[in-house]
């Protein structure tokens, strides 16, 4: 049955170049988007510093990884960066709490308009970006070690006898598993614990939360803790997958915000779904379908070009287009978030 093998080959090809990368990129976006959404719904501003804070946390992870590597500590087939992550979470938490203390708290106490705080966060974004470049420079850094692949294309081909291989990078596997666990934890926390419910209550109706005896300072603190954990893990996973570069973290802001808006601003589940909508759109639009179609179509119909809708340089345009479409057609997003 050569046609059946062709279909299998096409499916494997699709998984290898589109579905697996989109799943892992989507998970990274989802974690970042979840952090943005939490800040938005509890602290009531869109945090433009998200991408650069991710870079900050990743820089701490990279430095700690180097220290660990130099002292001969490794984590088996897993990247050493995973061991360094707790240090980065603490550093990131200290950083965001410091920023909150010296920047956002002032505006909160003044009852400033959200747009004022957003502008302050743009300032924080530039400062953070500056610190990141000052410490590690603007160049590309690869800090993943351990086994690069869980399954390589060659192993997969030998196992299945197909002519196409499916490779799963350790970073991709880690991204998806850690993201699932983390999102599960955040949702459990928000839905079931008293502190999580207090956070939602505070986000729902600030004055009534005060009347009910909820301490706003504690809610703000817990929010930053969650944000620091999400931000660090999102940053490190993205860096393990694609390498670290200050500018690419900065640019993550666009797809992250697009994910938040597509999913519905202020809706945690929307942020997750939005992340995957953006990642799958980016990859389906920039993937070259030539080989895929060759497997599926009869020889006479085989395409001669690459069959690629957009070249990968335009991937940010896709976030923009989705953003425009959603804002025109369904401004509340998929899960009926707030409208700014």
């Amino acid at each position: 049955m050569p046609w059946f093998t062709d279909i299998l080959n096409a499916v494997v090809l699709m998984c290898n170049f589109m579905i697996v990368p989109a799943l892992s990129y989507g998970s990274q976006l989802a974690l970042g988007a979840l952090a943005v959404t939490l800040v938005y719904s509890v602290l009531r501003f869109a945090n433009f510093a998200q991408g650069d804070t991710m870079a900050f946390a990743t820089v701490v992870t990279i430095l700690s990884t180097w220290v660990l590597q130099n002292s001969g500590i490794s984590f088996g087939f897993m990247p050493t960066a995973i061991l360094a992550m707790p240090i980065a979470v603490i550093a990131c938490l200290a950083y965001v709490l410091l920023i909150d203390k010296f920047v956002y708290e002032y505006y909160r106490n003044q009852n400033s308009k959200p747009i004022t705080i957003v502008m302050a966060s743009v300032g924080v974004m530039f400062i953070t970006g500056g610190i990141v470049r000052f410490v590690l420079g603007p160049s590309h850094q690869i800090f993943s070690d351990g086994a690069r692949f869980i399954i390589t294309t060659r192993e997969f081909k030998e196992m299945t006898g197909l002519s196409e291989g499916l490779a799963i990078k350790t970073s991709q596997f880690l991204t998806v598993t850690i993201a699932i666990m983390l999102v599960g934890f955040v949702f459990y926390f928000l839905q079931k614990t008293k502190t999580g419910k207090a956070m939602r209550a505070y986000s729902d109706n600030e004055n009534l939360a005060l009347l009910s005896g909820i301490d706003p300072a504690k809610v703000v603190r817990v929010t930053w803790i969650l944000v620091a954990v999400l931000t660090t893990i999102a940053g490190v996973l993205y860096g393990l997958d694609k390498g670290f570069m200050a500018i690419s973290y900065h640019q993550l802001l666009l797809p992250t915000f697009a994910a938040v808006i597509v999913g519905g601003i202020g809706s945690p589940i929307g942020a997750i779904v939005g992340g995957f909508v953006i990642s799958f759109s980016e990859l389906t639009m920039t993937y070259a379908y030539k080989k895929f179609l060759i497997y599926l179509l009869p020889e006479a119909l085989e395409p001669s070009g690459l069959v690629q809708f957009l070249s990968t340089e335009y991937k940010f345009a896709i976030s923009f287009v989705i953003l425009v479409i959603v804002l025109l057609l369904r401004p509340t997003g998929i899960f009926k978030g707030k409208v700014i």
Partner: protein
Amino acid sequence: MAYLSGENITAAYDYSVPILNDCSVEVNKGELAVIVGPNGAGKSTVMKVLLGMLKQSKGSVMLEGKDISKLSVQKRITLGLAFVPQTDNVFPTMTVEENLEMGAFLRTDDISKTMEEVYELFPILYERSNQLVGQLSGGQRQQAAFGRAMMTKPTVMLLDEPTAGVSPIVMDEIFGNILRLKKSGRAVLMVEQNAKQALTIADKGYVLVSGSNEHTGTGKELIADPVVRKSFLGG
């Protein structure tokens, strides 16, 4: 001596002209007291002073004969005061049950008993306990608001215009619920715009004008008073 009383209160927002001038209100357990009056008379301000959201410059707030004038809002809530604001009195994206839990946020003991009491008083809330409060009707939402306030096991409930902006049918429903709150042995003090209906069910009524007690009496007396009728109840 009344259970909760505000005695000779004078209060102002930020050094401006006093909103309340030597104003006194009181309410006992199992009693419904209503404050009515024209716009700007300081009706809601009375509540804010009783609750401690606004500090009075003169006078005092007494609960069970003890002066609570200097205590914070949170402290007064733990002592048995509960407040249902006029608007935004529920957490719309949380379920009925979660709203009740949030009402009991400061409590560390078992809250299931109190929750049962609330469900007994408002059976519809039990039916809708897992539904988001934002999806309930106006009257049901008001019950959820009452329920949330009841979770601190209050002895006094302060209601700020509970029937503002609802239809006449829902208004009757809400007044019915307020009577149930009263019959459960709590002291209920409310500010109302629908003066006539409110005074009909009130044990005590206060007509406030420019921050002072203009007329005081039982609800029936006030309704029967020709001056009150003419000036405040539309003849």
